[in-house]
């Protein structure tokens, strides 16, 4: 499903970034970086929008020729960015899928945050988090 998953701190540096086809990693890193601008734009525009649960999920940030990028921002300004393969039609009901996938990410991130051995702001090195992300990416190959 997802080709690349990234967790970005509120100061806009990556806490966790992983992509499946490991040879083109730099391309995904760059894509995630450029999507941060779109995320910021959406957050600032949201100030006038109505307040509801969906606000955490930002939806499709921007499509490229091969990939689609989705974003999600938590209340603590931590951003989750997911890059999925455009050719993957299983994500047609993208809202629901992305909402459930981002929910899982958010839940795992909260668990990492509550770990007393984790200092907020460090890179995420939790095996449970890795396992959850792997389960989201494993369907690609």
């Amino acid at each position, binding site marked *: 499903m997802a080709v690349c998953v990234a967790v970005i701190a509120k100061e806009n540096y990556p806490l966790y970034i992983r992509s499946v086809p490991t040879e083109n990693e730099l391309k995904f890193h760059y894509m995630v970086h450029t999507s941060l601008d779109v995320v910021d734009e959406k957050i600032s525009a949201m*100030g006038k929008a109505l307040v509801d649960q969906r606000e*955490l999920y930002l939806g499709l940030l921007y499509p490229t020729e091969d990939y689609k990028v989705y974003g999600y*921002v938590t*209340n603590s*300004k931590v951003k989750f960015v997911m890059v999925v393969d455009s050719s993957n039609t299983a994500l047609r009901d993208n809202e629901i899928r992305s909402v459930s996938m981002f929910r899982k990410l*958010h839940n795992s991130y909260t668990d990492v*945050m509550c770990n007393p051995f984790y200092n907020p702001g460090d890179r995420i090195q939790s095996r449970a988090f890795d396992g959850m992300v792997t389960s989201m990416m494993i369907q690609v190959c």
Partner: protein
Amino acid sequence: MADEALFLLLHNEMVSGVYKSAEQGEVENGRCITKLENMGFRVGQGLIERFTKDTARFKDELDIMKFICKDFWTTVFKKQIDNLRTNHQGIYVLQDNKFRLLTQMSAGKQYLEHASKYLAFTCGLIRGGLSNLGIKSIVTAEVSSMPACKLTSYFLTNVFSSYLSGLVVFVSCFCYLEDI
């Protein structure tokens, strides 16, 4: 409910544990209070992440403080803050007339001098929660009569307010020293 008592007892032991293991001179220069406050800070960061997982995005600072007074306080202390006052320029005063961690201690002026130790963790809790939501702040507590307490948080949003808050902290420290 038994779970309330658990946190209360753990908190009391934590405070006495920190003071027992304090080195020479640490009690006087306030290092123990700082340790407790830092513990509260880290816990507050984790807690706020968990609590805001399902809530909608916050519109502004007042919204965040209302969340802290209602939902956060209810989940941690099983009651809401009784009174919230603000000057709309970054200073918020939360008043709790029956602070859970102090109710078992006394109902008047007895043990007033020890109250600050038991409030340090909660101050850190609020500061950690606010910091994770993107607000740098200073949180102080005053107890004039148990078990009521007043927690004041100064938001450090710009240079002037941080200067002001530095001044306030300096003055309040000075007053504290004067009392001794």
